[in-house]
């Protein structure tokens, strides 16, 4: 398979290495000679010097025959232009990295369909979604995100004295678009239809958009409202986190040293408290009662500041004999994530890793995109993609093996509830929970659906 990558930066080189190891033919384009020379040295890829937004350069890279075009230079404009050009020249799938937040303003997500580009991915949004998923882990038994963070699954364990005890999963008051995927008991996942009455210790599998899942946890009593979260760093990631947390009924404070950025944040996010100060200054942190927060999320652009603040909060808590809040950090460079995990930070989101993973998933052919094991269960949640040619089919046309359940259908970042009459389209993303041995049968069912259609 031929893959063209525009931009030989850290992400571009990392992807080129991975894809070439998987046996693909990779062409790497960059304007600058230095990163290309580095890539040439260590990777078995073809390098090409030139402008990504030039038809001639793309033609020389052979995008017309390429199965995928990945545009990950540092410039949004070049990425969008390069990906759109490649698509018009015949590339199979086009993915562009777009970090400018204004691309995502408004109601409809712009990830799909703009200028024929299949996926527009934003590393800050992906990182924020990853951190929110990680934060969910402190409340739920298990949380995982799929489809670039647009769908979440979670396991909610019924507590000893929970009022839902004795009722069926259908009686739970869940937000719209959140579905029950099954009830896990004794290592066995029962499908929601005909599921038994809930007993303490049962784990209910929930799936839906992240906001919906968070709301479900709030309603089920797992997640108290009004907890105090301090977000260190008022960049794009910090802004998304603070905004999402306040929308979910939580209190968010953003710490940012830059005056003008603070004013912009205060203007954009009316419900968020914006605090101006240096997050590495102990006196300032004491002043804002930093260590009394329920959670601390460090997402500045500087790795050392993120690490330092999470260490300082522990120092302050030790002085005050308080419990340490949950700590989460974002890291930007490859390989730093492990370091953070080692020093005991609860959640680490590497913008580099989440972006790479999202890009690799985006260029996967139809079929199984990824699979995720549910802890303590012999069941997996699989992320599958329908063939681009699929049309005139509904969800009930998929002949799934017994015991498998569709959790969600994601289309253009919108999560659709899996009712049987839901019309399926090309390149829809399906989340299916099934025993691992049934996965090939599920994949076959989807493939046959596309073929029967033709």
């Amino acid at each position: 398979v031929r893959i063209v990558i525009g931009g030989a930066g850290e992400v571009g080189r990392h992807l080129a290495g991975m894809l070439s190891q998987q046996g693909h033919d990779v062409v790497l384009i960059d304007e600058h000679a230095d990163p290309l020379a580095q890539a040439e040295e260590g990777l078995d890829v073809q390098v090409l010097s030139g402008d990504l937004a030039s038809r001639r350069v793309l033609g020389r890279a052979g995008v017309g025959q390429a199965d995928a075009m990945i545009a990950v230079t540092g410039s949004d404009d070049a990425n969008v232009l390069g990906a759109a050009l490649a698509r018009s020249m015949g590339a199979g799938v086009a993915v562009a990295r777009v970090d400018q937040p204004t691309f995502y303003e408004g109601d409809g997500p712009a990830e799909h369909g703009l200028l024929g580009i299949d996926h527009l991915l934003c590393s800050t949004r992906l990182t924020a979604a990853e951190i929110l998923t990680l934060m969910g882990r402190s409340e739920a038994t298990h949380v995982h995100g799929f489809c670039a963070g647009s769908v979440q699954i979670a396991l909610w364990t019924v507590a000893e004295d929970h009022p839902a005890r004795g009722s069926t999963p259908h009686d739970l008051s869940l937000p719209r678009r959140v579905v029950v995927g099954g009830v896990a008991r004794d290592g066995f996942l029962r499908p929601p239809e005909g599921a038994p009455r809930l007993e303490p210790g049962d784990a209910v599998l929930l799936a839906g958009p992240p906001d919906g899942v968070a709301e479900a946890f709030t309603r089920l009593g797992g997640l108290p409202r009004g907890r105090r979260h301090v977000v260190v760093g008022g960049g794009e990631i910090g802004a998304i986190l603070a905004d999402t947390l306040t929308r979910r009924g939580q209190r968010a404070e953003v710490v940012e040293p830059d005056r003008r950025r603070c004013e912009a944040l205060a203007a954009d996010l009316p419900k968020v408290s914006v605090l101006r100060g240096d997050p590495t200054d102990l006196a300032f942190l004491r002043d804002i009662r930093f260590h009394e927060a329920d959670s601390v999320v460090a997402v500045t652009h500087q790795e050392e500041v993120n690490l330092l603040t999470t260490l300082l909060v522990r120092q302050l808590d030790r002085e005050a004999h308080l419990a340490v809040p949950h700590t989460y950090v974002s890291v930007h460079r490859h390989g730093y994530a492990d370091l953070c995990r080692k020093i005991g930070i609860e959640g680490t989101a590497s913008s580099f890793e989440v972006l790479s993973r999202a890009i690799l998933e985006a260029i996967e052919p139809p079929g199984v995109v990824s699979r995720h094991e549910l802890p303590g269960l012999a069941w997996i949640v699989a992320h599958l993609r329908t063939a681009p040619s699929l049309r005139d089919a509904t969800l009930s046309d998929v002949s799934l093996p017994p015991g498998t359940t569709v959790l969600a259908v994601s289309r253009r970042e919108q999560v659709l509830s899996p009712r049987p009459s839901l019309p399926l389209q090309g390149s829809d993303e399906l989340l299916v929970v099934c025993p691992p041995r049934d996965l090939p049968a599920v994949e076959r069912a989807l493939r046959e659906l596309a073929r029967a259609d033709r």
Partner: protein
Amino acid sequence: VNPRAVLSFTGLVLVVVAAILILPLGVAIADGQPRAIRAYAATAALTGFGAVALRIAGRRSGGVGLHRKDAFGVVALSWLLLGVVGALPLMLDRAVPDPFGALFEAVSGFTTTGATVVADVDSLSRATNLWRCLMHWVGGMGIVVLFVAVFPQLGVGAKQLFKAEVPGLPSEGLRPRIRETASRLWWVYAGLTALCASLLWLEGMSAYDAVCHAFSTLGSGGFSTRTASVGAWESPAIHWTIAAFMLIAGLNFGLYYGLLRGRVREVLRNSELRFYLLFNTLLVLGVVIAIGPQRGLGEATVREAVFQVLAVTTTTGFMTADFDTYPDGARMLLFLAMFVGGCAGSTAGGLKAARVLLLGKVAARELRATANPHAVIAVRLGHAVVPEPVLIGVLVFVTTYLGLFALASVVLVAGGMDLVSGASATIACLSSVGPGLGAVGPSGNYAAVSAFGKLVLCFCMLAGRLEVFALLAIFSPEVWRR
């Protein structure tokens, strides 16, 4: 400043005034009063002559658009000339023979103040009474705005003129072209005036009185055709109608334009509107509580309270009762309400509700900042964030306004007025309310104020109407520097 351009544009403004003078002239001719005919014909002719003279003096101004400084010059010069032109027929018609009194009456007219030096309004000619109310109407929306709406060839200069005259905070234009904005505002204004006049006529006023009172109400002026003001009519319907239209005149005219375009929810969510309505409701409540024990709680008491409160907060200054006879609590409330005035973008004067609201929000922010010194807090009006320079502008405006009040009232009191009359006269003129308390209260008038005091109050009225800085600008050497 380009003096030729200023003279030339001011000449054009005078052309508009000369045209407006034809209306009272027509009434004078219809009534067959030779003195009034002579007065208005002579003024119209003199104004036309003045306009031609200014155009000639200002010829070869280069024909280029107006600079920002020139716009201030045109507005300030126009308003000074308006006072003279307005005073002329009042003197010639023997309505106010004293030149200072006549100037005061005319400035009070054009600035929509409604403070009068005429003790017996009933004895004035119909032409003069129409002229007094017409000055309110023209001054309310702004003579220069009218001029912008009428003359298409102004170009960018029109925007500068508009900004210099229209009261209130900087806001987004209603239309892409300033001429369209100006003409739509005038259409809305004229339409509301026609509606008010026809309602009053249906409720039993004579057509002449209805038109005069509609002019006076929509301009938030306060001149009436009767000495007893609106109190001369004892119809509750007329009182309620005028009260309603005073409120309409005290709200932002941009809102009506929004309503016409169907943006009802957006208009109802306007935070200045909400604040202003709440403020008025509380004042009415306060006045009802104060006067209730004497008069009993009936429709008449509520109507009286609503009318008096709206007359003060919309800075119109009509009355159906003498609020100076109210208990001190109510008098104090009304005195303080004079400072606030109406909404930005209305024909009312005062500090404006939006500024007072912002002032409160800035104070609340300071309070929060003392508790949490690191917090960065944005001040909002509705959903929109108010930029820091605008907040500073509001603070400076309020400070200057209060400074002007302090200075002028000290001058008046030192000149022999008593404390209550002097202070209330100053704010009643500065906020264009009209009647104050004490000697200048609803039962009195401004005739007894000394000539010097009248000039000081004229300055206050102009400063209040032009939002202080447009007038003060002409005293700044910066503006005159080339």
